[in-house]
């Protein structure tokens, strides 16, 4: 049986949860098995996971699950996995899933692979999955040899598939220890898609000359419904907030579309963004290394090109 932990934020699923269930059912099909989903705490409309392929949805309701604590969540998921006889446990490769994966591996004495980007190759009774390594510069095939296998699924890798119908939610009786981590506050930027989840990203670098010029980047992002990002020196100089820094030592992203404006394309920058499906580079220097990693390029002055692109996007969206 494949157990998918479908994570919710403030009681609501994000795309990552549906992707994990889609991955779960496709893995179950390969193994001739079933996919069931687990939700923890109060979750709205948990039965919709059936639409993506969960044949059953379990919920554990317990006051200790109100806030995320990897220790408490892992204890509950491990018990559920044992109780239900799971052979594969699927998590999302998010701040939550990443904090759980290692704990579950230690608890269940199971091999784990973080950030998988392929369905398992189960030929010959094995279990092999691919993941990005060297910050996106290479791909490694991992073999898991333990009876229970653990994976966290990288975002934006598996196209969602609705194959089933809503199912009833059953409660699962497992115990939850109390948390030793106190949440004092949670601060979220409202109204923007966080970078790791963004399907479109508009990113800018030192070519912008200064923070006062970012209006044109924000206008383009707004027209595209994109999230903004930046290169490291831009964040280091406090032109932009640190959470926008993408690259090898910043956030690693894999959107469908990455637009790089006035960024040279240093190897450490590319390492965090080269898994984007389509890359557009706008740079006045035709020799900028980024063009080698790009799908589409515009050689020109960003201060002229970007506003024109914004107009063209607006015109397209209006038509």
């Amino acid at each position, binding site marked *: 049986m494949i157990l998918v932990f479908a994570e919710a934020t403030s009681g609501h699923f994000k795309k990552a949860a549906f992707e994990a269930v889609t991955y779960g059912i496709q893995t179950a099909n390969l193994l001739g098995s079933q996919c069931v989903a687990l939700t923890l705490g109060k979750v709205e409309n948990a039965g919709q996971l059936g639409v993506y392929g969960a044949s059953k949805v379990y919920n554990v309701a317990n006051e200790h699950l109100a806030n995320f604590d*990897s220790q408490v969540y892992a204890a509950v998921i491990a018990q559920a996995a044992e109780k239900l006889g799971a052979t594969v446990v699927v998590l999302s490769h998010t701040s939550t899933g990443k904090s759980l994966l290692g704990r579950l591996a230690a608890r269940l004495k199971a091999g784990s692979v973080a950030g998988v980007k392929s369905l398992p190759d189960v030929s010959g009774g094995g279990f092999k999955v691919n993941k990005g390594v060297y910050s996106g510069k290479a791909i490694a095939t991992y073999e898991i040899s333990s009876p229970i296998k653990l994976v966290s699924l990288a975002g934006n890798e598996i196209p969602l598939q609705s194959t089933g119908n809503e199912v009833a939610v059953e409660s699962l009786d497992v115990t939850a220890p109390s948390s*030793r981590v106190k949440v004092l506050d949670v601060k979220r930027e409202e109204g923007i898609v966080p970078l790791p989840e963004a399907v479109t990203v508009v990113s800018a670098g030192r070519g912008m000359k200064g923070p006062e010029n970012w209006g044109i980047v924000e206008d383009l992002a707004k027209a595209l419904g994109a999230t903004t990002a930046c290169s490291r020196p831009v964040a280091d100089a406090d032109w932009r907030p640190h959470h926008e820094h993408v690259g090898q030592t910043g956030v690693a992203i894999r959107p469908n579309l990455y637009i790089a404006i006035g960024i040279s394309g240093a190897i450490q920058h590319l390492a965090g963004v080269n898994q984007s499906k389509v890359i557009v580079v706008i740079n006045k220097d035709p020799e900028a290394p980024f063009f080698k990693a790009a799908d589409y390029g515009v050689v020109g002055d960003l201060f002229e090109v970007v506003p024109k692109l914004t107009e063209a996007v607006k*015109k397209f969206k209006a038509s």
Partner: protein
Amino acid sequence: MKILVCISKTPDTTSKISFTADGAKFNDAGISFIMNPYDEWYALVRACELVEKNGGTVTLINVGGADNDQTIRKGLAIGATDAVRIDAEPKSALFIAKQIAEYAKSQNYDIVFCGKESIDYNGSEVGAMVAEYLDQPFVSYASKLDINGNTATLERDIEGGVEILEVQTPFVVSAAKGMAEQRIPNMMGIMKAKSKPFQVVAPVEFPDLAVPVKFTLPKEKTGVKLVSPDDMDELVRLLHEEAKVI
């Protein structure tokens, strides 16, 4: 205060990555190695700052062969008190975590630090595993950590925001950008590092349950399609019709 910092050795960030012809192993010819930046810049430096302020010791721990000693010495030069190397080939995350936890369990550390991930395997798993083996709380992706007595206040990076958390020692934390600023070791630090205690410990028996068996390089881009800066309608058309991303 007694602090343990887990460090790993990774290829330099400028490295061009390649593999042996059969794709089975990383090709380290011509590669220079560094301490994993998250371990060095954030975890280790913050640990040193905490003991400089509150007194105590910072112990470095690494699982690996003697070829890691240079990296470990750099950590001592930055300011750690002493170092331990578990003499084993680090092939899988759970194996590594087991070795660290086995060493740590009798030492009563107040805090175990690691970096948020290593820039080679990008697993982000070891910290959580060590925390589980030690039965301690784990705060991942912490971009801020302050301590007052036994109570730590941390900021943890989450998608689109931060959580402000409070936890009592002992606990395990993984460090992200923001926790500290990179320190360049000075001459005195480098000299002192040579005489700091450095222990080599035999590993405990533990299986490797998930290992890389093959490496490949991503498909090269087939070549950039250049669009005239005067024709952004054409770029939008291509992104819509050809690339299908808008």
